[in-house]
C-alpha cells in the first residue's frame, strides 16, 4: 500500500442527496430524495490517477463536483494535501481552488462563447492575481504551446474551434493556475476516436511533466484502463468495487464490474468472449432497491435472500481489492 504521507486527495464518507422534485407544479410535497452520492470513500496518491467509472446517473460526476465544492456535499470529509476542504470559508476556498481544478465533458458548453481564448485563459490569472498583464501574455502563449495549440488561436472564439481544440483550451484553463489536482469529468467522451487519442496522450504528458494527480471520471472502461492506476466502480451512488487497475481488469470481484467489462465491445472480430447481458435498467437513485442495490440485475448464481435484505459492505476481499458483494469470492 502507498504510505499515507503520499496521499494528496482523501475522501471519506462523502454524501450528497438532492431533494426530489415536487409534484403538482412545484406546490405539492417533495418526492423521494435522490441519493446521488451515498457514502463514497477513496484516496489518491500524489501523481497518480484514480479512474471513477459507472453508468449515467451513478453519481460519479456529483462526486467530482462535491470534492471541489462546486456542489456542497451534505456529509463526509475531503482533504487535499492534509487541508480540510469542506471546513473552508469562501476566501480560503478560493485560495485552495488554485490547487484543484476541473475539466468538463462538454467542450461546447464549458467555454464562454463571448470570450476569446486569450480572455478565457487570462481570467483565472487575474482572479488569483498570479500574473501582471505583461506576464499574463507570456503565460498564455506558453500554456497554448503546452496543450498543443498554435499561438494564433489566442484570438479565436470558442465557436471557431473544433471539439478537440476546445477541450485543449479547457485543459489550458485548468492548468493556468498551476494546480496539483485535476478532476477530469468525461474529458474525451464528446470527441471522435482519433482526436480522443490526441487528448489522452496530452493528459498523460501533462501529468508526467507537472506531476499532476487526476480523478478521471468516465463511463468508458477501455479509456480508464488506459489511464488509471486505481479504479473505483460506482453503482447507484456507492462504490461497489475498488482496486489497482491491473487487478480490477484482470480479475473483477463484483458481478457488476464483471458485467460492465463483458458488455464493452472489443474491436476484434475473432474475440470470443462470454457476454453477460444484464436484464433491466439501472433503478432510480430516488428508490434504490433494498439490500444490495445491484441485486435485481445481478447475474450471480449464488444470489439469495440475503442480497435482497442486507446491503453488503465495501470490504477488502483480497489484498488491495475492495468489493461490496456477499459473494465476492465465489466464482461468477
Amino acid at each position, binding site marked *: 500500500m502507498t504510505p499515507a504521507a503520499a496521499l494528496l486527495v482523501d475522501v471519506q464518507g462523502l454524501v450528497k442527496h438532492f431533494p426530489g422534485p415536487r409534484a403538482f407544479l412545484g406546490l405539492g410535497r417533495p418526492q423521494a430524495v435522490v441519493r446521488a452520492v451515498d457514502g463514497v470513500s477513496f484516496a489518491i496518491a500524489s501523481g497518480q490517477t484514480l479512474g471513477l467509472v459507472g453508468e449515467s446517473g451513478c453519481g460519479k460526476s456529483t462526486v467530482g463536483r462535491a470534492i471541489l465544492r462546486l456542489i456542497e456535499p451534505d456529509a463526509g470529509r475531503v482533504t487535499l494535501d492534509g487541508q480540510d476542504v469542506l471546513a473552508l470559508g469562501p476566501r480560503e476556498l478560493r485560495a485552495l481552488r488554485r490547487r484543484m481544478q476541473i475539466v468538463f465533458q462538454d467542450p461546447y458548453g464549458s467555454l464562454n462563447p463571448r470570450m476569446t481564448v486569450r480572455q478565457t485563459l487570462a481570467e483565472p490569472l487575474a482572479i488569483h492575481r498570479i500574473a501582471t498583464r505583461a506576464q499574463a501574455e507570456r503565460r498564455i502563449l506558453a500554456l497554448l504551446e503546452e496543450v498543443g495549440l498554435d499561438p494564433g488561436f489566442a484570438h479565436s472564439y470558442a465557436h471557431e474551434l473544433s471539439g478537440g481544440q476546445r477541450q485543449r483550451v479547457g485543459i489550458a484553463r485548468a492548468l493556468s493556475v498551476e494546480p496539483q489536482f485535476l478532476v477530469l469529468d468525461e474529458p474525451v467522451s464528446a470527441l471522435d476516436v*482519433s482526436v480522443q487519442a490526441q487528448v489522452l496522450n496530452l493528459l498523460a504528458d501533462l501529468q508526467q511533466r507537472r506531476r499532476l494527480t487526476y480523478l478521471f471520471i468516465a463511463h468508458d472502461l477501455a479509456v480508464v484502463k488506459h489511464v488509471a492506476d486505481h479504479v473505483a466502480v460506482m453503482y447507484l451512488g456507492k462504490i461497489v468495487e475498488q482496486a489497482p487497475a491491473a487487478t480490477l481488469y484482470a480479475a473483477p470481484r463484483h458481478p457488476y464490474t464483471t458485467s460492465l467489462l463483458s458488455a464493452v*465491445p472489443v474491436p476484434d472480430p475473432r474475440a470470443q468472449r462470454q457476454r453477460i447481458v444484464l436484464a433491466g435498467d439501472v433503478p432510480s437513485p430516488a428508490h434504490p432497491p433494498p439490500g444490495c442495490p445491484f441485486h435485481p440485475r445481478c447475474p450471480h448464481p449464488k444470489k439469495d435472500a440475503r442480497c435482497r435484505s442486507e446491503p453488503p459492505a465495501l470490504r477488502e476481499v483480497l489484498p488491495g481489492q475492495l468489493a461490496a458483494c456477499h459473494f465476492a469470492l465465489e466464482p461468477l
Partner: protein
Amino acid sequence: MTEALLRVRDLKTYFVTEHGSGTARAVDGVSFDVYPGETLGVVGESGCGKTVTSLSVLRLIPEPPGHIRPGSLIEFEGRNLLTLEPRDLRAIRGNQIAMIFQEPMSSLNPVFTVGDQIAEAAIVHQRLSRRAARARAIEMLQLVGIPDPEQRVDHYPHQMSGGMRQRVMIAMALVCHPKLLIADEPTTALDVTIQAQILELLARLQAELGMAVMLITHDLGLVAGRADRVVVMYAGQVVEQATTTELFAHPLHPYTEGLLASVPRLDAPPARSRGRLHSIPGQVPAASAWPAGCRFHPRCAYAWDRCREEEPPLLDAGAGDPGAHTVRCWLLTEPRRRTPRP
C-alpha cells in the same frame, strides 16, 4: 452471389452552406451494396458523411439546403428510389426500409402514446384496423422485450427510460417487417449495459425476421462484433471496404489503420495499455473544403507527391474475389512506401 437488396452507386449529396456562398460535399461519390439478411457496418467519425448517406437512401434529406446530384443511383430491389413518385416512395419507406435513429429521446413524439406510434405504420402500410393495429403494437412491444406490454402500450415516451424508448423505436421500425433496417448509431446515447441489451435484441430480431441491417456507427468495437462486411468512410467517401474479418486483420487504408490503433482497448495486454496511444494528427477537414488529391493526405504518415495531386480511386486489394476488399489509396500501387515512420 445473390442479388443485392440495396445498390448505391456514385451517391453525391451536397448542401448549400449557411451563408449560401459555398457547397458542402457531405457525400461525394459513395457506392456500396447491401445483400439480403446481412449486416453492413458503415464506420467513420463525425462529419464523414455516414448519416447523410443513410438519410439519402430514405430520401430524407431536406431540400433545400441539400440535394442529391443527378447521376447518383439508389436502387432497392431493382427500383431506383431517386426517381420514384412520392406515393411509391412512401410505400417503401417505413414499410420495406425502416430506420432507427440515435436519439430515442427526440425521435419519439411526446404527445402520442407509444402504442399509437407503433400502430401508425401498420395502419398506413398494411391497412390494419385500429383494433388490429393496437394488438399488433402489443405484440411488437413483447417482441422487443418490454415487460407488461398491455399496460406499456398506453404509456407516453416520457414515462420510459432511454433503453425502453430505444426498444420502442425498434418496435416502430420493425412493425411492417422491413427487408432493410438502417440503424444510425442505435446505441450511442445508451449506457454500456443497455447497449449490450439492444444489440442482442437487434441480432435476435434480425435472425428471426431475416432482414438486412445497415449499422452506422463510429464504434469499431461494435462493428467487429456485429457486422458481416464493413465500409469505412472518410471525408464524404468510402476509403476502404472489406469483410469484417479481413478489415480487422489486414486494414490497408492508413486511415483505417490509424483508427484501429487509436482506440483504447479493453483487450490490450497490460504492458501496452499504459503507453501512449497512436493518434492521427490534425482533424477531419470541413465538407466545404476537402483537401485536393487524396482527402486524407494532410493527416497521412505515408503521403507523397502523388497523394497531394491526384485523387486515388477505389483500388482492388487483390485478396479474394474482385471487389471483396477495396481501398482508396495509392499505397496499393506502391506497397514499398508503406514503411513505418519514426
